[in-house]
């Protein structure tokens, strides 16, 4: 061992280079941050994606962002795998619009599926170039080189070696790569062959997440923790009821509060800026404002709401399945079933509310944002301030979860308006009441289902109609502050999706549609709507799976067995359902179980769904208190097929969290409202 150590040292001496060094050089991301001042990184340049510093540390640049789901670590695993470097050598520089390419928002639980191949191919292109450089340096053809932990050596001659840091450290690759398409569909370096997944050493291994240690010590800088020199604190003053504007403002009402800088009013937007956060909070709470009378009124209760959903003409119909003729088949069916389901408004419920910092100087702006889509926020702020998008730089810091909430960063717009008004950097944080009252809610939905069964107990007709409010807040509409200063949405919004209505089942006659019902949005009002985790699908899946379970029970058939009859030809669907049933030690029988004595009834439920490329099937063991009706979920067994798994413990953490959040949403969560707005404010 000692001899080898010496030899290695002598070799290194000979090359006059350091192979290992710690923190001797600034990270490559800092070196290159200055490389694109005001300019747009070019997707066809390898340097836009990967940088290697002199100590061999690798920085991956991506506009996908860590929202708490672990993608930072998973993307790093993918890059480490392709480059054959230690995972600890990888840093992921996320979500700075001046340093990254627009890969579209981080959404849909699809970052690994969409950005994973982009990072993989960029890393594979970097490896290819590094091998080319090493081949020149070592005088051996690339096919005789092997890479281990960022060091390239000649196969069979381990003393002929050179590290990535020595080859390119601190320098630009200046290599062009193929880049076709945009955003999620961007295809990178398709001509470069990546590793065969069967050779993976790092991808597929459970690793601790990068972001967790500094989160447990207070060292991770969340968006709420960003402080800029000479930063002021802003708060937005929200109207008490929907859709109103300030008629008069009594400035004297906050005279006694020290450190107030300015009351800012633009059209319906009203805010205060103070030198301290406490001053801004008190001013926003104390400021006396007379608001005009609202001109639109919400449905005043749930009955009115669901009547509105059923009776209002949709602006678009999302078509899921259109197969055979379910209407005719229904009339011919031996037995017919019909069911209606209602799903309430639900909120994202981030623990920490919206927060952003803006520094607007003339026609330029820097925004610190916890958004899911830095480029989307860049576009929205540019539209708000009426300046070119390229004059806005968005710098990402993690917010509090998100769950879809930060697809639309309202706080960034608030901060931008206030900063512009005072000519200084302004930090805005929403109050709990602001967040719960004004965050865009997961839309209310109702479904009408009809099914027909023939003589042999086979489903021959399936009609599934989802009536949903759209996302009034989305990439194609305007955000709150924009609306308040008079920039109107040109569309009623984006659809709430149509997956989960039973499309996985091979019914002979099936029609699955989602009617998107326009939601009052002539003016800003608090019951805004947007994408909430697995948009619309919890509701649709609940309806579809519940009716299937009820039909199976009525026919006296085991509900797992019943589903498998309609999953023929769907290998993944069949396997996932069987896996969940096996793990849950499913006893074959029809439902319900026999009468139980005592105060508690026990039972079980099964459901499954497919969402884009993934399948999930779950079995729940449930108790119901017979006198109170209270439900207790004792155990959930879930099988999940999301394709290639990068970090198994990361996926497990997500699945566990989703079970808890999903059960909570199914049993406990409903946003209350009245004719004026949201009443669930704390």
């Amino acid at each position, binding site marked *: 061992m000692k001899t080898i150590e010496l030899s290695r040292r002598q070799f290194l001496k000979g090359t006059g280079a350091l192979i290992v060094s710690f923190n001797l050089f600034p990270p490559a991301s800092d070196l290159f941050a200055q490389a694109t001042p005001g300019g747009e990184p070019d997707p066809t340049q390898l340097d836009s994606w990967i940088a290697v510093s002199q100590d061999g540390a690798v920085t991956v640049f991506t506009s996908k962002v860590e*929202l*708490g*789901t*672990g993608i930072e670590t998973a993307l790093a695993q993918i890059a480490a795998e392709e480059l054959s470097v230690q995972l600890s050598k990888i840093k992921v520089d996320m979500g700075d619009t001046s340093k990254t390419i627009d890969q579209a928002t981080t959404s849909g639980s699809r970052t690994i599926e969409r950005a994973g191949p982009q990072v993989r191919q960029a890393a594979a292109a970097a490896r290819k170039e590094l091998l080319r450089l090493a081949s020149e340096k070592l005088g051996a053809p690339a096919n005789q080189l092997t890479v281990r932990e960022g060091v390239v050596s000649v196969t069979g001659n381990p003393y002929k070696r050179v590290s990535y840091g020595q080859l390119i450290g601190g320098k630009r690759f200046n290599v062009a790569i193929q880049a076709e398409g945009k955003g999620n569909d961007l295809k990178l370096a398709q001509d470069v062959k990546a590793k065969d997944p069967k050779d993976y050493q790092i991808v597929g291994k459970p690793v*601790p*997440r990068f*972001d*967790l*240690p*500094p*989160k*447990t*010590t*207070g*060292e*991770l*800088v*969340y968006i*709420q*923790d960003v*402080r800029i020199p000479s930063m002021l604190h802003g708060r937005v003053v929200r109207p008490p009821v929907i859709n109103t504007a300030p008629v008069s403002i009594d400035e004297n009402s906050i005279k006694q509060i*020290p450190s107030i800088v300015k009351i800012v009013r633009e059209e319906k937007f009203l805010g205060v800026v103070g030198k*301290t*956060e*406490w*001053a801004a909070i008190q001013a926003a709470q104390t400021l006396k404002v007379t608001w005009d009378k609202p001109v639109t009124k919400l449905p005043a209760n749930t009955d009115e709401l669901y009547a509105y959903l059923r009776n209002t003409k949709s602006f678009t119909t999302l078509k899921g399945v259109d197969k055979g003729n379910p209407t005719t088949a229904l009339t011919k069916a031996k037995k017919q079933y019909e069911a209606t389901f209602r799903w309430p408004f639900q909120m994202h*419920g*981030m*623990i*920490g*509310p919206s927060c952003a910092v803006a520094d607007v100087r003339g026609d330029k702006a820097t925004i610190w944002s916890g958004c899911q889509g830095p480029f989307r926020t860049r576009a929205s702020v540019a539209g708000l301030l009426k300046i070119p998008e390229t004059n806005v730089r968005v710098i990402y810091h*993690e*917010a*509090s*979860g*998100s*769950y879809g909430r930060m697809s639309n960063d309202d706080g960034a717009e608030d901060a931008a308006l206030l900063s512009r008004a005072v000519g200084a950097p302004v930090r805005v*944080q929403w*109050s*709990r009441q602001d967040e719960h009252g004004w965050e865009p809610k997961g839309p209310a939905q109702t479904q009408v289902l009809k099914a027909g069964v023939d003589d042999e107990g086979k489903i021959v007709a399936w009609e599934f109609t989802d009536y949903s409010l759209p996302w009034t807040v989305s990439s194609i509409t305007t955000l709150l502050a924009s609306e308040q200063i008079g920039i109107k949405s040109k569309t009623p919004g984006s659809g709430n999706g149509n997956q989960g209505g039973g499309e996985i089942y091979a019914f002979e006659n099936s029609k699955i549609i989602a009617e998107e019902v326009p939601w009052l949005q002539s003016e800003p009002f608090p019951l805004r709507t947007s994408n909430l985790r697995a948009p619309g699908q919890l509701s649709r899946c609940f309806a579809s799976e519940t009716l299937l379970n009820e039909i199976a029970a009525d026919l006296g058939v085991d509900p797992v067995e019943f589903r498998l009859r309609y999953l023929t030809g769907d290998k993944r669907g069949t396997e996932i359902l069987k896996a969940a049933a096996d793990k849950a030690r499913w006893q074959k029988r029809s439902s319900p179980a026999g009468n139980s004595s005592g105060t508690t009834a026990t039972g079980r439920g099964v459901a499954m769904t497919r969402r884009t490329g993934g399948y999930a099937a779950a079995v729940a063991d449930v108790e119901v208190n017979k006198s109170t009706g209270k439900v207790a979920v004792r155990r959930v067994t879930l099988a999940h097929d999301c394709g290639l798994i990068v970090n198994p*413990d990361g996926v497990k*953490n*997500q699945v*566990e*969290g*989703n*079970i*808890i*959040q999903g059960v*909570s949403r199914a049993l406990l969560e409903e946003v209350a409202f009245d004719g004026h707005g949201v009443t669930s404010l*704390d």
Partner: protein
Amino acid sequence: MAQISLRVNGKTQTVAAEPDTPLLYVLRDDLQLNGPKFGCGLGQCGSCTVIIDGNAIRSCQMEVKAVGSRAVTTLEGLGNVKKMHPIQKAFVDEQALQCGYCINGMIMATKALLDKNPKPTDAQIKEALAGNLCRCGTHTRILRAVKRASGQKV
């Protein structure tokens, strides 16, 4: 503004603040301690938790003038990434967080619990952490982390 002396994480510091400012804003904005987080400002979520006199306290609900000479401990007072407190390490070992926004409160409430009850039962842990909200759904992992931190079988 008043000059207010505070003993935080073993150090006495003087800040200029309005006496009725909630302690949370002084810790965060004046002392730049990012551990305690603003969640609700209503004492409902627990993300602003600090320890005063051995008790887990909601710093959003305590005026800074009420602290007096009592010692305040924040998350930063427990440890840092290079030198973690066993509770912080247990949370990392169990990968017991996702977004991590609530975790300050979970860890500080755990610290207050274990200082009084070094080997809590599952029921006692759940009771001690019941006022701390987590939206990501890492509850089962948090329970394991607390057991691990208390040297009990996970």
